[in-house]
């Protein structure tokens, strides 16, 4: 399927048999409307946000092996570390779309967001985005502009922080009434 004329299209990537459309953030709604109306992607399946803070720092991540395979203990590849390619911004928000009335094509729309930036809502296009976008706000702290009910979904309303961010502290929360308070 050709997406070359899509509004705000930055890049069309293809990997593992999946198509990813990187879209310019301000034109996301325009692109999504076109995908629904012109390309037939009538169902929004999922919205997944990813935090890339610390992506590719040596020692933490990286792939040991040859370009051909995962032969990590092969004598010739010892210590040969390929760091993953840097990402344009801190967060990626991925919209998995599906055209269920036109066979089974599937596409992923991806927008890149920095900390403090917000994504426009797509509730008007796919009503199912409602909870998925609230989850993105709740778990990743990416504000959704224009969402009709911009509240936390899973955590408590007075919860501090956004748990799925990479800089969210691990190691538990203070226990109330434990004597240390």
């Amino acid at each position: 399927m050709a997406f070359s004329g899509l509004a705000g299209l930055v890049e069309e990537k293809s990997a593992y048999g999946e198509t990813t459309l990187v879209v310019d953030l301000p034109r996301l709604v325009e692109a999504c409307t076109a995908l629904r109306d012109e390309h037939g992607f009538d169902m929004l399946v999922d919205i997944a946000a990813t935090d890339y803070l610390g992506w590719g720092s040596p020692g933490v991540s990286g792939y040991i092996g040859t370009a051909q395979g995962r032969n990590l203990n092969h004598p010739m590849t010892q210590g040969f570390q390929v760091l993953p390619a840097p990402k344009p911004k801190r967060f990626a928000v991925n919209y998995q779309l599906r055209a269920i009335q036109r066979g089974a094509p599937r596409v992923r729309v991806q927008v890149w967001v920095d900390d403090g930036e917000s994504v426009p809502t797509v509730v008007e296009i796919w009503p199912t985005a409602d909870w998925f976008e609230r989850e993105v706000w709740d778990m990743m702290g990416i504000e959704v502009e224009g969402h009709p009910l911009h509240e936390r979904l899973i955590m408590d309303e007075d919860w501090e922080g956004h748990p799925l961010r990479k800089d969210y502290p691990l190691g538990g929360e203070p226990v109330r009434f434990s004597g240390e308070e």
Partner: protein
Amino acid sequence: MMAVTQRPPTQDPIYDGTRIPSPIPTVLQLDPSLRDTDDILTVNFGPNHPSMHGVLRLVLDLDGEVVVGVKAKVGYVHTGFEKNMEQKTWWKAITYAPRIDYVSFQNNELVFVLAVEKLLGIEIPPKATWMRMLLCELNRLHSHLVWLGTSALELGAISMFWYTFRERDLVLDLSEMVAGYRMHTRYFQTGGLAEDIPPGFYPECRKFVEWMPKAIDDYDALLRKNEIWEERTQGLGLLSRADAIALGQTGPVLRASGVDWDLRRDDPYLFYDRVGFNVPVLPNGDTYDRYRIRIEEMRTSVEIVEQCLDRLERMEGEPWTADDRKVVLPPREELHTSMESLIHHFKIVTEGYRVPEGEVYVAVESPRGELGCYVVSDGGPRPWRVKFRAPSFAALEATATVVQHHYVADLIAVVGSLDTVMGEVDR
């Protein structure tokens, strides 16, 4: 013999257009003209209500007995599965997947394992794939049996619960035989299966396959023409075709609204393109049709299990896991004799295998609909991000659309017919 009185059809026709509340699709707001009247009672339904499926809280506005406002609140069983999986190696993270949806555990395990395998590009022996299919279909039976038993129980049909849980136990016995555990088996590994299929499994499974269609006929005989069941389910909880698609419904809920869509047939994974099965689709979009879809799906599952058994019985002695020592644990007995196997075992268990960089989204047809797994790898031994697309999560979003202007007593049956598992919604 008593004459059966003919009663007028209670069934409402399915509506055209859309009923999704506006502007918030998941919240049914109280009509402004009713807001300050004394007749409106706001009730907190749940989170711990005996008739709720798990810990779901609904804030209801009632006008007499009629639901005029709904707001669903979730998050009571949030346990941070996705965050936990980021901290574990790929190998250990498999353990978390089945616990997300504890009723269709095998499908959850499968979707994560498939995602990792897609990134690894590893080849799976056919015997393992057939066995995965068999177990996933048994798991579908398990899930539908739990749904049928509890849903009938909520409407007062207590006996259904005992019958369905009798067969559910047979499924779990098979699970125990294969994996040693009744639930959350962790029998699927990247590369294939954790162990070979035990001797004696096929005959036991055959017995079950022969027994199960009769049991399904019994359930159907108990409910299908049951007047109380018909009256409590027909024409209630309507969801039109357009609304079901707009609200992201998948699985039985979508098919009961007349959309012919099944991932097993339309986007085949495993060997679903090599077995014959039909996809039941019904047009009415009510609770009754959702019930009938699930009954038909149970029959389909039994057929698929049978076809898997036919193949598996001819595969005695074939490998059940990929021959890739960098990913698959070496056989236990080799650890005592082979230094290399010991090193491999140690590396996989402690550091974990590394998975090439990339992002994939894999979807399977779980008993509840499209179960997706979005996985990002940075090339390291741990997942960078795991996101589960839970079918129950989307199904619950339809609550405000399907329950409007129903009696509060019907609300239980209608929300129950969406078949949600809260562990999966909250993750």
